[in-house]
């Protein structure tokens, strides 16, 4: 009696596992199949298959994710994965030849370029967008036009003693500065603290933090003595409600404009975002199609997710770089 139980039990277990696996395989396959057909029908083509693997910066991730999502509508059978393990980790994988494209929120370091050379990995660098931050105050604020990086650091560093405007400059009113900024989950927060305070995620905590930029806009808008910061692209949308401050990093006061963000003169609160593509990936048509699609749509999708798109010249330069890499 007992003898058969174990066999049966094991049998049932194995069967259950087997069925679930087969079930997953089949249903996954069929769903994907029907999905691809209907979507291919909509997009009027989609014959490529294969894989494109991306990894790297969490700052570039939203753009790459958006591109991958849109690309899926055109080429549903190409499996694009976008990892988000940070620029450094992405570079390591890129050097190891594990991924086709590396998202980077900084230029490639010399050490990394040397490692690529050593491994025989040739690549092209494509500039896909700019990340710029805007420091903003209420339009009724008449006294302040510009802050130095030093003042910003004094204002935002942890345990900052700055309570009133006059603490920054004795000529300014003795009124409390109401601070607004992004919450600790956002890349904007990481970036601002890194370049202004000098240490990533080091910030005073007594400010109104919100992940929703609208909250920041309404907050600064409704309080004469408020100050806040967020992505530059978002300021552009709310120009009329806010006053933009210039930032002085030693070379005079500079207000961010699309141009200043693009040519990096609005330092340190702007930075270029790159993707690095391994040349050997271009042997695969799906990778070529994806990179082309990326360049064609980067500008629009970058603004969608809150970045400053690259200029038309850079778009052209990117296209040329790609053409050059493809012709070889």
């Amino acid at each position, binding site marked *: *009696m*007992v*003898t058969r*139980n*174990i066999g*049966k*039990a094991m049998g*049932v*277990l194995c069967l*259950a*596992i087997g069925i*679930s*696996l087969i079930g*997953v*395989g089949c249903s*996954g*396959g069929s*769903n*994907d199949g029907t999905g691809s057909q209907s979507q291919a029908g909509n997009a009027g083509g989609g014959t490529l298959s294969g*894989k494109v*693997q991306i*990894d790297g910066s969490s700052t570039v*991730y*939203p753009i*790459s*994710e*958006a591109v*991958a*999502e849109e690309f*899926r509508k055109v080429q549903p059978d190409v*499996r*694009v*994965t*976008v*990892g*988000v*393990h940070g620029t450094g980790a992405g570079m390591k*994988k890129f050097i*190891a030849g*594990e991924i086709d494209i590396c998202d980077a929120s900084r230029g490639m370091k010399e050490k990394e370029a040397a490692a690529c050379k050593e491994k025989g990995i040739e690549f092209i660098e494509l500039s896909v967008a700019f990340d710029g931050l805007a420091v903003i105050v209420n339009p009724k604020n008449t006294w302040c036009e510009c802050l130095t990086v030093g003042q910003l650091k004094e204002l935002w560093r942890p345990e900052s003693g700055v309570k009133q405007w006059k603490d920054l400059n004795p000529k300014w009113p003795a009124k409390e500065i109401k601070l607004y900024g*992004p*919450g600790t*989950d*956002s890349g904007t927060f990481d970036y601002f603290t890194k370049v202004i305070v000098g240490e990533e995620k080091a910030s005073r905590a007594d400010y109104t933090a919100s*992940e*929703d930029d609208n909250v920041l806009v309404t907050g600064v808008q409704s309080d004469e003595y408020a100050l806040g910061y967020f992505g530059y692209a978002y300021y552009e949308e709310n120009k009329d409600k806010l006053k933009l401050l210039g930032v002085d990093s030693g070379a005079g006061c500079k207000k961010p404009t699309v141009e200043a963000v693009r040519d990096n003169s609005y330092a340190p609160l702007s930075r270029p975002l790159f993707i690095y593509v391994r040349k050997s990936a271009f042997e695969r048509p799906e990778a070529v199609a994806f990179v082309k699609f990326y360049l064609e749509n980067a500008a629009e999708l970058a603004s969608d*997710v809150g970045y400053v798109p690259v200029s038309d010249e850079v778009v052209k330069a990117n296209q040329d770089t790609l053409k050059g890499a493809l012709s070889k």
Partner: protein
Amino acid sequence: MSAKLDIYTAKRRGRITNFLFTSVCFLATITCVIVLFVLMWNIILQGKSWLSWDFVDSFPSRFPHKAGIKSALYGSIWLIGLTALFSVTLGVGAAVYLEEYAPKSRWRKLIQLNISNLAGVPSIVYGILGLALFVRALALERSVLSGALTLTLVVLPIIILASQEALRSVPDSIRRSAYALGATRWQTVWYQVLPASLPGIMTGVILALSRALGEAAPLIVVGAMAYVPFVPESLSDEFTSLPIQIFNWTSRPQEDFHHLAAAGILVLLVVLVSMNAIAIFVRHKYGKKIRW
């Protein structure tokens, strides 16, 4: 007189102590339950309006209203299926060897000590091992297979220890009787000892697989933190899993994604509970039949 009084006070004191102890134990229990309910309530409140068939049947998206957990759900099912396959065969095999076959030598003690220690190693350490061993050295890349093998490493010690405990609880008289009746060691283990310890083994397996289902850290190290808009179709495909998708959503700034994460947690709970229900059913069904 006084002796009688003493008995009464002692009795009363005993009752008070008894009452106090019961209350403390009850409070301990109720605290756990309340915390659990508050958590659940919070998650249900946040996630229920986002939970729909579309949510289960869509791929992740940058638009919260279009985003779903299809790839994560399928990824998790693949992972758990494979992990169960690997860890149950290896784990129960190792336990049977250690309990029934291995000579009681110093080596066995050493191995035993190691396994006990491994059960306490943080899962992220296994993630690093998985990255070095499966992803890099064996060149399995960021595949479902690498993920499942890494999770197998995480849960293997738990399954071995639980199975050993279950095997040890089978009285020696059963083994001796089997031998006395002329059964070989194989027959004794397969037809007597294993069936008798099955409920215990199943409990261990349930606990271990539930843990594997909820693990995110080792998989993130292996490289599964990614936007994956497709379902794995073979062992070498990329994957994402429910805990990773939930983690991804909670780390996004927009509020809507946090609600999506709550909905994802609900799906994860449903998968977990139904998986456990199946295991409990199997255990109950086959545990009941054991009669000596």
